[in-house]
């Protein structure tokens, strides 16, 4: 199995069929049928977008406008006020702080996972050392358990290390999974043996080979994985919810829920919705701007 070709059922394959197509034949759509297709797709896009649009609108109007339903469906003029309020004061803690926490966590998880996975995959593929098979299976086992399943004992471990309300507590338990290691292992196995031999003949020691040959050749894989892991890290909810009791350590995704009042008070919807929009922006930018890498990463990481 190679890293890119046999892995995903779909997107790994070139989608060039459309490009090399003959002029529209009998199976192509024209006229009314074509418009219907477009109409249905646009409808689909609108339905999918509606919740985001509504959130955006809500983030630009005043609290009373929302509290008296139905709320408007077109943006109001409170954009700057609401976002400024959210970013600088928020409800419990300024959203800017939560954004920073999310950023540190997402990047920490992505970089951490990539670094430890690159190193261990390199060792497992390019060395024969005592315990290699044992380590291989050890790492393989971690593939199977999402953090959700082992939350209580993991929480106890993190608490025992005094890592509650800390970045390391947010990051470390989530990089203990082997998906990335397997991805890199698969990729390294596709690097021709001769390249390593040529490097040996050229006099490269193992780490030199890693640094000069393996790493540059893995660039695309690393970037694709970074995109996926960034989103994975950014969108974490349960784990930050458990271990950040101090609001100043909240991440934005979990912090939104904390903005809802307990009891019967009316939620500050404009600020909450502005926060929701802010929580979406970084991952959305990453996905849309790096669409190709994102799709590739998605396909690769699904083994």
């Amino acid at each position, binding site marked *: 199995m190679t890293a890119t070709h046999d892995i995903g059922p*779909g997107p790994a394959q070139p989608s060039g069929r459309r490009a090399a197509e003959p002029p529209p034949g009998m199976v192509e759509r024209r006229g009314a049928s074509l418009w219907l297709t477009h109409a249905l797709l646009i409808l689909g896009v609108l339905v999918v977008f509606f919740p985001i649009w509504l959130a955006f609108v809500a983030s630009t109007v005043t609290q009373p406008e929302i509290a008296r339903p139905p709320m408007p469906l077109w943006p109001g003029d409170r954009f700057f006020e609401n976002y400024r309020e959210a970013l600088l004061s928020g409800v419990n803690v300024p959203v800017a702080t939560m954004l920073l926490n999310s950023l540190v966590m997402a990047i920490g998880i992505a970089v951490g996972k990539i670094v430890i996975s690159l190193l261990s995959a390199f060792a497992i593929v390019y060395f024969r050392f005592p315990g290699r098979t044992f380590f291989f299976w050890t790492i393989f086992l971690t593939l199977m358990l999402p953090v959700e399943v082992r939350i209580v004992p993991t929480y106890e471990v993190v608490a025992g290390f005094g890592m509650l309300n800390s970045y390391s507590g947010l990051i470390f338990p989530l990089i203990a999974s082997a998906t990335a290691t397997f991805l890199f292992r698969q990729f390294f196995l596709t690097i021709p043996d001769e390249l*390593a031999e040529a490097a040996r003949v050229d006099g490269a020691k193992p780490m030199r080979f890693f640094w000069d040959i393996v790493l540059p050749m893995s660039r695309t894989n690393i970037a694709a994985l970074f995109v996926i892991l960034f989103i994975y890290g950014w969108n974490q909810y349960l784990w930050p919810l458990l271990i950040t009791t101090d609001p100043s350590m909240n991440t934005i995704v979990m912090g939104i829920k904390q903005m809802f009042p307990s009891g019967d008070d009316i939620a500050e919807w404009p600020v909450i919705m502005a926060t929701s929009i802010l929580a979406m922006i970084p991952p959305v930018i990453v996905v849309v701007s790096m669409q190709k890498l994102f799709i590739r990463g998605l396909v690769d990481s699904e083994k």
Partner: protein
Amino acid sequence: MEKRVTFKGWMLPLLLVAPQVVISAVFFFYPAGQAIWQSLFIPDPFGLSMEYVGLGNFEYLFGNRYYLASFVTTALFSTLVTLTSMIPALFLAVMADRLIKGAGTYRTLLIWPYAVAPAVAGVLWLFMFNTRVGVVAWYLGRLGYDWNHVLNETEAMGLVVVASSWGRISYNFLFFFAALQAVPKSVIEAAAIDGAHFWRRFFTIVLPLISPTTFFLLVVNVVYAFFETFGVIHTITSGGPQQATTILVYKVYADGFVGQDLGSSAAQSVVLLVVVGLLTVLQFRFVERRVHY
């Protein structure tokens, strides 16, 4: 598969695997072992000592009405999420695949919601259906339907299902679209020459050809519904009303952290572990199929 070339030495490779092995051991194997260990004990009410109860926790679990109900809820929930996220995605992908121009634009537009965290999706949908200010709830009220997911169990389930499926539509769309694009055009043309119309072609030719992708997505979406929807449920219903939306993962959290029932929570973790194992096996068998496909 093995490399022909290997480097010598064993200190360096051990150093290289050390970070991953240490992190896995501390944050993975030790907690997982703890979960299994704790599942065999019941702590006394003051948390001072542990009483060994063997499989008592498990017996208790499977005799517990709420736990069994949670199993049923999880099954229902994941079935609904899988269907609700796959069918519209397939429909949209088929539409986009019919286009010569502009399919890429629709893809870019539809890819978005995948990036939205489940918890944020929960907040967005909660906002639309909020009994006090929700726009959709309000319009439903005008139509004579009194929406109240806080009290109505069916409505609560419906809402968490839709909110969980929403972002997944993007994901499924991507895979379906790519699979459809990879169906050889000549096959479709041959079917057209045989006189099959569009939907006929779709059900007899295209759907069987993309079945590997469909199976793959089935498994992946079930895994998603099981383990990654905690955020949606926690933000919208907190498992209520009357535990109507308490899926297994939510129950581990509720019993372990809110209820502080460590033995039961640990036993539930172990049960989930078995479930994950089964799903993984399913996934791997599927991967094997795909290799031959």
